[in-house]
């Protein structure tokens, strides 16, 4: 299958929560500077798979993995991988907007401040402004950068979280149902944003909303019960699915 350049590859990947297998033999390519959607019924392992790409699953007790996730050919599950560096390259946006109880400025500057060489104030201000502009929220917050980010609406908070992820200049951005807690207008803004961001970033987005996958993604992975049922270009998947299961799912017969 031709998907352009693949910098990220998941290979024979299994994940267990204690004894329970949550992901089974997943293998897929994630093409660079494209949007890849992960779809499937609730509980099928979408979030688990996404969180495997920057090792966020490690925070949970009793998680074990087998197989590989390769970033530029390097297995991120090797013993000597620097998880902190990995997560700076592979950023994450969560389902519920989760800005820190700090000012908007401090939220966006956070990742940069936590890095090894913190830039001078003026450089930091530039980074914050650039990130907020990239996340299409600059105009709405430029006059209140030093107010708490918690005062914003849910949709604005989510774009702050995206700006915060962009500020550390990641290569890959993982998004776990980033619009599911938002109203339709805020959702449309996020989708528009994702569309623009793929010029610069590789994006993997989890969604349980078929229309959303169809609107924003170039490739789609369909997951069921922890297994990858089908992976391919979104357009083909929507119009001419390769499997009966996929067809049933996208036509809304279950899920």
């Amino acid at each position: 299958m031709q998907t352009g350049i693949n910098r990220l590859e998941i290979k024979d990947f299994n994940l267990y929560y204690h004894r329970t297998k949550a992901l089974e033999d997943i293998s897929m390519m994630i093409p660079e500077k494209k949007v890849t959607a992960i779809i499937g019924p609730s509980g099928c392992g979408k979030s688990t798979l996404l969180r495997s790409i920057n090792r966020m699953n490690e925070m949970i007790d009793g998680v074990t993995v087998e197989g590989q996730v390769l970033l530029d050919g390097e297995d991120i599950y090797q013993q000597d991988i620097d998880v902190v560096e990995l997560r700076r390259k592979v950023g994450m946006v969560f389902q519920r907007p989760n800005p820190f109880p700090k000012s908007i400025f401090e939220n966006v500057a956070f990742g940069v401040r936590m890095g090894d060489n913190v830039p001078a104030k003026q450089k930091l201000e530039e980074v914050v402004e650039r990130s907020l502009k990239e996340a299409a929220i600059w105009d709405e917050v430029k006059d209140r950068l030093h107010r708490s980010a918690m005062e914003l609406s849910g949709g604005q908070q989510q774009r702050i979280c995206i700006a915060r992820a962009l500020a550390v200049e990641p290569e890959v951005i993982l998004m776990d149902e980033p619009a599911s807690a938002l109203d339709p207008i805020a959702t449309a803004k996020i989708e528009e944003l994702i569309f623009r961001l793929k010029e610069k970033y590789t994006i993997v987005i989890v969604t349980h909303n078929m229309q959303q996958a169809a609107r924003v993604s170039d490739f789609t992975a369909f997951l069921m019960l922890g297994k990858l049922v089908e992976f391919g270009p979104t357009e083909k998947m929507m119009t001419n699915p390769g499997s009966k299961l996929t067809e049933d799912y996208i036509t809304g017969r279950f899920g």
Partner: protein
Amino acid sequence: MSLKKTRFKYLGESLIEGNIKITAILAIIAVFLIFFFILRESLPIFFNGEVQQEITFGKFFQGIQWQPVSDHPRFSLWPIIMGSLKVTMIALVFAVPVAIGAALYSSEFAGRRLKEFIKPVVELLAGIPSVVLGFFALIIMASFLKNIFGWTYRLNAVNAGIALGFAIIPAIYSLAEDALNAVPKSFREAALGLGATPWQTAVKVVLPAALPGVSAAVLFGMGRAVGETMVVLMAAGNAPLFSLNPLESTRTMTATIAAELGEVVFGSGHYHALFFIGLTLFTVTFVINLISWALFDGLMSKLYGAKK
């Protein structure tokens, strides 16, 4: 079927509710009664001419000596105010880092097993009667510290402050840990997802997010330290000296009341003076609580925004 309630259907509930209400009201009444009692016993200093022969409000702030039983009694509060301040500050300097460090460690870094060990042990410390703590500080700790540091006086403000610190660590730890545990997991995930180390996450995200609760914990500990009596009575050397030196013996306001009220001549100037000290302590504790509430609200709206 009618929607009207039958007569006795909710009788049980209203009985329980009524009981709780009465208990709450009784507690409030008790606090007010204590306050008015202390106030009444202090008032003669301001209004009773006979008492004022011995003691007036002004005399509390004249000179630097507390010598209530002598031919020329002196009632300066400065030495015991200084004593309370010194001992409280030393206790906080010692207890706050230990308690908050332990709380941060057990909420952010300790595995589940270790956590289940730390918590009960610290809470066990809370169960030590303060007289036992005072005894320990008086007999063992004082000699130990004196030998190590070569102090002139065994019993001094540092000795008492450290003992008092032990007395308030459990309360600060417990409240601070609750505040840290209440910080949503999503903040930690966000920080780690941005490439912060676990240490950075704890110190730069979790601790600041819990700051309203943590600062309330510290002020609560401060209130406890100001009011604690037995430990300081036993461990501070009990000399009402007006001195900034933490290595000299000292005496607090609470210890003064405890030591002297038993032998005071009922209705004398000295008697009313002791009640006035009680009133002052009451006020100080109340003000600390007010500051704590204001700080909590202020920090909450600064961090989490003004919207409710």
